[in-house]
């Protein structure tokens, strides 16, 4: 199924550092510079109005600016400056997140630089056209060295293609007409041979174009959760407006009029500016983290859904087990010795280039030091066919075969051999363990069985245990019989399995899980996976797969590594947690700000209120200004957290919540008390207040 050549599947995502997602340091100098410029550019009211929380700060700054004009003082000017900085810091956070995407998009755009294409006309002649002029359905020819002009399906020929521009994977992949590996992507390079490609995407809608749009966040839509959170933040902002506005009549009634500048300052401190400023940066950075791992999400919604997934459907091959089965044991039958079985099995496999065949040769050498022999040219290789279900070779008058138990037994009986009585128990025992028995015969004599074992990936059981702790059910999908499937499922530690799976049963399984209200994620690459990929809430298509699969899924994994589904889930969760944690932090901060500002406002009239000044701030002005400065600085301080995401360890909901409530809830209450006090001390030291 998978066509990647020599791609070790268990490579950690962190180890990859190329492709679309060039790793950049969080504070890449180039991005920083650009973000600073963009932060100023975003002061445009039309941009500001999109974020209700920051828009209030923006308007407040303008109000204070008017006061700077009419009644200038050090205090009013300082407040105005820090309010303006608050807006700029928020802009900067968003620009930083966008900048990282833009840098990636630029890399991709360079690839798209106009290529010329050889369009195949109906009469068979070729005409050179610009890639821009290609329409859906056009056929183009590509030969070694050509850049494929646009997305398409190979109609003729086979070629090795360098897809490193998209995937960052330097090893070339084989693409051929027909079947599941006929899709090619615009911007990749043909390394050998000649292929005819039918264009399947209009200009501007190719995979590359969509990728550029995605990483740039140009057509980023708010996700459902983000919308819900924006509403909550807007409601909080709307509520704090009258809370501070009525302080003016309240103050007048008490004989302590409150200045408009202070009211604006208090309002800005109370409304959830921290999360309001960082919200879009968190969303963009979440997408960016996926791109860093070479996964492209077609929508933010899909990333969020990934965090909610309760059932993971995982293909056995390539995800849970290493791609191929490996010979692990020789079991002799009758009076044959183990090394004799190894010897004959090796002979049967010498000309067999399948991975299974190679593994037999390797095992024979490891166990019994049986070297590869030069058997000359007087042999005939008997390839595996679906009807015979055997392979082997005829060497002189020796007919050596290996294959499925039934087939070999029938073949032996047909040429007059006798089946040893201990063959059946040996075959059964191997099947029960989830391995595949391969019976070996030398002519009419059955010598033994080779156990072909599915090798469960190293560390996969631990990952499934983590999933379980997070409340996610893992289901293994395999074409194997139920007996084999059960044994592998047990070894890998999945919660359930679907044996003898067909596209239909897969679809049924997804629907059944969804009926129970669960969100389902799956990976797939073949055209026959497309309906299931579309049905699943999160469908991760392998880049090596067909265009149909890629269209149906809502994410594409450029590395074609199905295990990455688990990473995707974790990134989705991390995105949500970051938002929740900073929201809690933002609201919790208000407690300390009240204790700073309220006593400061009315202490002139009501001396006793100084008892509420538990931070012992120096003066009313320094108290208000300290709160405003803290409020602005905390945005900057949290930009790295917003971009990186909060630390996430897979664990149960209860322990995650406990941890985050302590850090961001209780911490959010305590920290500003310290922060405001320190800023107050510094302000006092300047002597201006």
């Amino acid at each position, binding site marked *: 199924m998978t066509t990647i050549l020599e791609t070790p599947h268990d490579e950690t995502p962190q180890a990859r550092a190329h492709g679309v997602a060039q790793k950049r340091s969080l504070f890449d100098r180039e991005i920083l510079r650009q973000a600073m410029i963009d932060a100023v550019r975003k002061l445009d009211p039309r941009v500001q109005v999109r974020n209700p929380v920051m828009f209030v700060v923006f308007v407040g700054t303008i109000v204070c600016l008017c006061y700077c004009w009419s009644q200038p003082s050090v205090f009013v000017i300082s407040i105005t400056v820090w309010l303006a900085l608050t807006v700029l810091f928020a802009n900067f956070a968003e620009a930083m997140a966008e900048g990282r995407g833009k840098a990636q998009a630029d890399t991709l755009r360079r690839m798209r630089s106009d290529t010329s294409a050889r369009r195949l006309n109906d009469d068979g002649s070729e005409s050179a056209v610009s890639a821009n002029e290609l329409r859906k359905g056009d056929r183009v020819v590509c030969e070694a060295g050509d850049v494929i002009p646009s997305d398409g399906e190979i109609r003729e020929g086979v070629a090795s293609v360098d897809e490193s521009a998209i995937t960052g994977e330097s090893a070339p992949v084989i693409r051929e007409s027909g079947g599941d590996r006929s899709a090619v992507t615009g911007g990749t390079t043909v390394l050998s041979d000649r292929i005819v490609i039918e264009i399947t995407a209009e200009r501007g809608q190719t995979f590359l174009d969509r990728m550029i749009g995605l990483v740039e966040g140009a057509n980023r839509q708010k996700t*459902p*959760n983000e*919308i*819900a*959170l924006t*509403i*909550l933040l807007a*409601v909080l902002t709307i*509520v704090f407006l*009258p*809370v501070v*506005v*009525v302080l*003016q*009549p*309240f103050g007048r*009634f*008490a004989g302590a009029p409150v200045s408009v500048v202070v009211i604006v300052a208090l309002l800005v401190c109370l409304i959830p500016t921290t999360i309001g400023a960082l919200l879009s940066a968190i969303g963009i950075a979440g997408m960016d983290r996926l791109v860093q791992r070479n996964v492209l999400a077609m929508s933010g919604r899909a990333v*969020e859904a990934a*965090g909610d997934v309760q059932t993971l459907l995982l293909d056995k091959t390539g995800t849970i087990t290493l791609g191929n089965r490996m010979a692990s044991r020789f079991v002799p039958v009758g009076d044959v010795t183990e090394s004799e079985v190894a010897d004959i099995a090796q002979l049967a496999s010498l000309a067999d280039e399948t991975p299974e065949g190679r593994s037999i040769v390797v095992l024979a050498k490891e166990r019994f030091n049986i070297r590869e022999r030069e058997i000359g040219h007087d042999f005939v290789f008997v390839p595996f066919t679906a009807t015979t279900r055997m392979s082997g070779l005829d060497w002189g008058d020796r007919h050596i075969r290996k294959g499925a138990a039934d087939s070999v037994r029938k073949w032996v009986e047909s040429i007059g051999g006798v089946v040893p009585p201990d063959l059946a128990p040996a075959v059964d025992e191997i099947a029960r363990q989830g391995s595949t028995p391969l019976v070996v015969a030398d002519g009419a004599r059955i010598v033994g069985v080779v156990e072909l074992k599915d090798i469960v990936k190293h560390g996969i059981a631990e990952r499934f245990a983590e999933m*379980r*702790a*997070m*409340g*996610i*059910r893992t289901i293994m999908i395999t074409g194997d019989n139920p007996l084999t499937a059960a044994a592998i499922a047990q070894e890998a530690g999945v919660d359930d399995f679907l044996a003898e799976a067909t596209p239909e049963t897969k679809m049924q399984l997804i629907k059944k899980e969804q009926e*129970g*209200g*669960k969100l389902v994620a799956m990976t797939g690459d073949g055209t026959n996976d497309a309906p299931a990929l579309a049905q699943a809430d999160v469908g991760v298509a392998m880049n090596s797969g067909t265009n149909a699969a890629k269209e149906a899924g809502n994410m594409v994994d450029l590395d074609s590594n199905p295990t990455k589904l688990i990473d995707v889930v974790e990134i*989705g*969760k991390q*995105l*949500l*947690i970051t938002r*929740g*944690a900073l*929201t*809690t932090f933002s*609201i919790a901060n*208000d*407690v300390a700000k*009240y204790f700073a500002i*309220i*006593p400061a*406002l*009315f202490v002139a009239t*009501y*001396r006793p*209120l100084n*008892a*509420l000044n538990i931070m012992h701030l120096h003066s009313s002005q320094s108290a208000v200004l300290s709160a405003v400065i803290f409020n602005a600085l905390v945005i900057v301080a949290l930009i790295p957290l917003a971009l990186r995401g909060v630390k996430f360890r897979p664990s*149960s*909901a*209860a322990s*995650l*919540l*406990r941890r985050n*409530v302590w850090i*961001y*809830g209780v911490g959010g209450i305590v920290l500003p008390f310290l922060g405001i006090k320190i800023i107050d001390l510094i302000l006092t030291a300047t002597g201006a207040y």
Partner: protein
Amino acid sequence: MSFALTVIALVVGLALCWRFLGAYLVAVYEGRVRFLRFLERPIYRLLGTNPDAEQSWQRYALSAVMFSGVTVAVTYIFLVTQGHLPFNPQHLGNVTPALAFNTAVSFLTNTNWQNYGGETTMSYFSQMMGLEFHQFLSAAVGLGVAVAVIRGFANRGKPTIGNFWVDTVRGTIYVLLPLSFVLGIIFVAQGAVDTLGGPVTIHNSLTGVTQVIALGPVAFMEAIKQLGTNGGGFFNANSAHPFENPTGLTNFLSMLSLLSIPVALTYVFGRMVGKMREGVAVLLAMTILFGAWVGLASYAEHQTNPAVAHAGVTYAGVGNTEGKETRFGDTSSALFGVSSTMTSTGSADSAYDSYTPMGGFALISGMMLGEVSPGGVGSGMYTILLFAIIAVFIGGLMIGRTPEYLGKKIQAREVKLAGIGVLVMPLAVLILTGLAVSLHAGTVGPLNGGPHGFTEILYAFTSQANNNGSAFGGLTGNTPFYNVTGAIAMLIGRFGVLIPALALAGSLAAKPVVPAGLGTFRTDNTMFVGLLLGVIVIVGGLTFFPALALGPLVEQLSHGRFW
């Protein structure tokens, strides 16, 4: 009864109410109690409703609003024409339009704010047909809406939430009428009056003083006043009047009955959503808040009144006894006060204006938390569920899941509705208080100046916007300004929460249920209780801290630190 004994008896009594009244309520609203079928049927026929047809939230809300509109108009007409109506032995004149408007709205909204003295303003007919009628039905409506909202959580993809008319009728005839009947009998037995006869004139031949003792149909109104968390008493002195609250037993039963239905509703919640632990979690949150506020108020009232001490007056015994019935004492009065303010009842057996500043702080802040611990009949339950939605949303985000509450996904619409429902009350209180302190019509109201006068105004709007109805006192409320602004506060406080709650119910009802797993945010453990409490206290604190600082807090601090 000593304070400790009262508390223990209250806890035991409420535990029994929770279990048995709760189970009975479930049976009533699931339609399993039917012994008054012969009464129900003709009522439905009269209303023209099919009792088996369930309503969407829109129809349910529309029915509630229509019903309220008609009944409030009828009460208004009764009040402004009472001089021409029967059962008026004192020949009291018509109520002025502004006062009639405020009073009609007040009883409609289960507030029972009284800008009048009952025995000198309202005829027996007005008391019974105008006001007591609403005491039953406003409680029945609240109860019905709470059950409808619970149905929203319990339904699996069925968009209807019950039938308003059926819920209201059943709540009245199966729950409120029978319970009030029993309670009224006990009150009569304890010495509360209940008569249609006019006031008694007593001439003391020794002193030569002639006294008029007001009487009236008091005892049964008293029963529904407490049971329905209404709080509007027959007499101006409310539960401090010996004819309304004659003995220690009636005082205890008053507290028990006003807490009973709100507490029992958490059982209904647990049962109807199929997980009792969920109901217990909500009850626990309510209990912790309630307990903390009782502790604060009783402690404050057990201190010497700083103002009295300041004046150089010394008196025997401890505690702030000013404005309290000696038969109830300081701490028990505080317990009654907190029970009444935190259930949106508003009945009182002591004068809140005379509480210590911190005692007054406990009363006013108890209401500012949104009347959720345990809150009014029905309204407490549906309001705390709105807070729970917000707690679940924030908590859910912190564990990386699209938040769910009882398997229902909490999305933009739910957050919006819960946000409106939770925040409409603080907005109404703050804006109207701001208006009152800015206008001459408002500033002439309070009898005191400075922080205490500010508290008197703030308390009035807090009480009305929370549909509580308790009066701090010291505010001349029967003016066109306070009658109209108060009515606005009450209407916003009632329908500004009730309608979003029903809309939420409708939206939740239509959603499928997501099965719970290890990764699900649990709402039946102490962590959630803590989070819910945090949201309630932080929302209340953040919105009201400045106002409280200028009122009771500064008043307390000017007497020295409380702690």
